[in-house]
């Protein structure tokens, strides 16, 4: 016999009330720490110690605590017979109900048990769950309410915000770069700094580079100081960078060519020809292992021996003599210059440059000698291995020689890696230099427009934040504005006078009889990326625009300019952005107002956010490929900057 319904109903009702009471108690208890956490987060946000965006998860966690308490209290297992005991106690039944519940679970029941069940059933009529388990106000509810009111009051309190003012040092005109751009540089070097394999000198240089970027972000550097520090850092990298890496690579290629004749060493040969010392080391160890295990036939060993012998014999010519000649020549030049009584400032600068060049040559020579020694050691090991193979029954010895050669390759691979990192750092420095140069150019060109841009800096950052929000799926979607929305700003005559001249390429206008102020007509196309019809990021692509912005002033006969002229921005002297100098750079900017075409709103995938992981993978693939192409193909340096800048702008963000 199962428990009669007369008993089951009040039991279930009592159990439900117990769970409800427990849920309320636990919810109120956990609401206290939840509200405490919420109060802490609100206080941190008020004092700006925590960003509003970062506060949301904490507030969610605070809100989840009482809910968890409710769930825990409601779902916590009840003690067996608790409801029955409460009913017994409340109604003075002397365990009639709890005994009935216990006996109903018995498989075999005695007559007394049956009688006890009947007895309990007879008393079930007056059972009341509310009497057995009266609901009461949770213990911690009042305290929770008090804390809740406190948190609400705290949220209403307005804390005066401390407006962070940028540190502007008096007397300098700081370089102003967008924080997002600088952040890109920092994040580029983060993995390099984090990697334990990074050599200490590279790590030091990277730290110095980061300090430079921080100073630029804090606007503590003017343009001259920034460029000076970049130059200093480049010099430092030049000093530490292995000078004759190319020589090393060529030597390895030569050895690889020689090894190609042995079919068993095909993989090794290929790795050497690729200049990949790390892979070559692995292949050489594999070859040594095969030799040790006597897996090679007699013919294969013979061919391997010949290849090793050839690789050992074929040594590149010694460069020391050549270097010595250059050093003597440099010394003669320096001597001649010292003998001159009076030196003009340009001559003095030339002398200093020569001295530096000589120092560099000496350093390169020393490093070349070190590389030479490394190569010698490698070839010596190959030679010994070949000799061991020549003597029959000496395969084990030959394998050991090959192992030692692999060790040598390992050392080379490590240096190769270090060189790679330094090259990457130098690339970053070059980009930064270009960025500073362009910032200056932009500043000069836009004049007043730049001031507006400064004023709207916060607005620009806000737009960037909105973009990131959209990318995270919190925005309303991405709006792509058609190019015609803003129309064209029209021409800005005369503002670029004397600044955009390009040697050999510009169409100069000679002004009056002076004939000096060549005026270039630059053509640039400005590609704007952003929403709401306002630019967020700007890419200038030279020589691809169609409309003219600058027009010369003055009169004079029109003829093609034969030089850059003077008076232009000196930073343009090393401008690498032109392609063979046979183009015109025209700058085009949009014009506010009703354009001929309508804006087009495309609600794209950003409505639900980008697929972050997928995007990161795609980005890595594409940027890596672009980098390879930039290294491999002949791409004008200026275009390289644009390509890298483009990938910098679209990089995945955390």
């Amino acid at each position: 016999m199962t428990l009669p319904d007369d008993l089951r109903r009040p039991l279930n009702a009592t159990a439900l009330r117990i769970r409800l009471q427990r849920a309320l108690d636990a919810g109120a208890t956990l609401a206290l720490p939840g509200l405490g956490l919420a109060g802490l987060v609100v206080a941190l946000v008020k004092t700006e110690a925590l960003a509003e965006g970062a506060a949301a998860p904490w507030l969610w966690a605070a809100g989840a605590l009482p809910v968890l308490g409710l769930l825990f209290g409601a779902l916590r297992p009840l003690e067996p017979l608790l409801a029955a005991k409460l009913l017994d106690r409340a109604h003075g039944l002397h365990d009639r109900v709890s005994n009935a519940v216990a006996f109903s679970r018995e498989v075999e029941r005695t007559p007394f048990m049956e009688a006890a069940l009947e007895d309990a059933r007879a008393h079930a009529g007056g059972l009341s769950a509310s009497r057995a388990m009266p609901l009461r106000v949770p213990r911690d509810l009042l305290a929770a309410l008090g804390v809740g009111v406190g948190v609400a009051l705290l949220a209403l309190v307005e804390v005066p915000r401390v407006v962070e003012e940028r540190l502007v040092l008096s007397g300098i005109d700081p370089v102003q770069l967008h924080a997002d751009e600088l952040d890109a540089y920092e994040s580029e070097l983060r993995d390099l700094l984090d990697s334990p394999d990074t050599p200490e000198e590279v790590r030091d240089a990277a730290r110095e580079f980061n300090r430079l970027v921080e100073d630029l972000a804090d606007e503590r550097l003017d343009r001259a100081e920034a460029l000076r520090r970049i130059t200093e850092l480049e010099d430092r990298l030049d000093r530490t960078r292995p000078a004759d890496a190319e020589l090393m690579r060529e030597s390895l290629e030569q050895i690889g060519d020689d090894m190609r004749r042995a079919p068993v060493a095909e993989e090794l040969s290929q790795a050497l020809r690729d200049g990949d010392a790390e892979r070559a080391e692995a292949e050489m160890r594999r070859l040594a292992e095969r030799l040790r295990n006597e897996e090679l036939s007699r013919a294969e060993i013979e061919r391997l021996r010949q290849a090793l012998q050839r690789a050992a014999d074929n040594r590149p010519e010694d460069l020391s003599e050549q270097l010595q000649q250059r050093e003597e020549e440099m010394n003669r030049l320096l001597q001649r210059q010292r003998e001159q009584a009076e030196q003009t400032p340009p001559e003095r600068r030339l002398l200093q440059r020569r001295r530096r060049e000589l120092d560099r040559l000496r350093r390169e020579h020393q490093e070349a000698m070190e590389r030479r020694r490394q190569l010698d050691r490698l070839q010596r090991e190959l030679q010994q291995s070949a000799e061991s193979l020549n003597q029959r029954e000496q395969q084990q010895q030959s394998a050991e020689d090959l192992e030692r050669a692999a060790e040598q390759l390992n050392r080379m691979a490590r240096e190769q890696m270090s060189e790679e990192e330094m090259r990457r750092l130098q690339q970053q420095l070059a980009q930064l230099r270009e960025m500073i140069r362009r910032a200056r150019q932009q500043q000069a060109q836009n004049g007043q427009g730049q001031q507006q841009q400064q004023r709207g800096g916060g607005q620009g950052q806000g737009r960037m934040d909105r973009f990131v929000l959209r990318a995270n799926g919190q925005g309303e979607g991405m709006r792509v504005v058609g190019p015609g929305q803003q129309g064209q700003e029209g021409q800005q005559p005369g503002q670029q006078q004397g600044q955009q001249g390009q040697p050999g390429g510009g169409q100069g206008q000679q002004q009056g009889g002076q004939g000096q102020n060549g005026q270039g007509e630059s053509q640039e196309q400005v590609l704007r990326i952003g929403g709401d019809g306002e630019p967020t990021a700007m890419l200038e692509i030279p020589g691809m625009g169609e409309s003219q912005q600058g027009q010369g002033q003055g009169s004079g006969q029109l003829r093609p300019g034969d030089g850059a002229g003077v008076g232009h921005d000196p930073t343009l002297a090393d401008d690498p952005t032109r392609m063979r100098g046979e183009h015109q750079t025209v700058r085009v900017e949009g014009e506010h107002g009703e354009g001929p075409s309508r804006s087009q709103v495309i609600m794209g995938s950003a409505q639900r956010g980008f697929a972050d992981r997928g995007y990161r993978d795609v980005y890595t693939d594409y940027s890596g490929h672009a980098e390879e192409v930039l290294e491999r193909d002949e791409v004008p340096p200026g275009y390289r900057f644009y390509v890298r800048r483009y990938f910098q702008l679209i990089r995945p963000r955390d």
Partner: protein
Amino acid sequence: MSDEDKKPEALVRRFREDLDRVRSEVGKMIVGQEEILDGVLTCLIAGGHALLEGVPGLGKTMLVRSVAEALHLQFSRVQFTPDLMPSDILGTTIIAEDDEGHKDFQFRPGPVFANIVLADEVNRATPKTQSALLEVMQEHSVTVGKQTHTLEQPYFVLATQNPLEMEGTYPLPEAQLDRFLFKLQVTFPSRDELHAILDRTTGSDKPTLETVIDGPRILEMRSLARDVPVARHVQDYAIRILEGTHPDRDAAPDMVQRFVRFGASPRGAQACLLAAKIQALMDGRFAVGTDDVRAVAKPALRHRMILNFEGEAEGVKTDAILDRILETTKETSG
């Protein structure tokens, strides 16, 4: 007996009626002391023995005598003194001569050969005599020479002891105390009860008691009590109370850990449950509840706990310790 009479409901009803009649008869002689009377009846039905503790003149002997009369059982009383020998209570063998002049050894039973034995002031006898009595209580038989004499059932010993005059007494050892199912403490009567006592005992009327039940009926009731089921949670409660008397158990309250040297033996739990069954029947219920266990815990356990020196020095009562144990022991184990 018809089938209807064999049903638990009928059996329990009859049990209650019989007990009520006994109570009613004894109530003619004894004023108040209902709790003591219930305790004595519980011990009698359970087949155990009771130790009554109280000052002289509270009606202990009268109560036992009245119960014996109401139950139609043979009653004997032994006044324990220091010179009382075991043979004085057990009986002895004497030389008897028959009509033909033949002489033979014959066993002359002592006062223990009765259904209800009142061992008055049992702590005044020497341990040797106490042991003889306690062996009878346990074995329900007397061995003299090579002959064993079985005692008639029901057999019930009710020992009394005076807590005041301890000079020249031999307090019962703990092992022997353990053989008593209950230790009942006879309290001084209230003013109303005293009035009633004086009214009854100083007048010329002397009430006479009727026999309401006999020995076989007592044995039936004993058998019935053993049929009462105990749910697992109730039994668990009794065990946890027992564990609470042991200072080395986690369940023991601080007071136990501080003042108790040894806790109650498993006989304590047996006494609790058996007495609780009778308690349930007295209340007309068919199963034991935790209330029943709680009601009998003190008389069943108070004499089974041994206090340590500190407890003795502080004059701690075992009842206070048991109150604390009952207070801290939860009715459900969850």
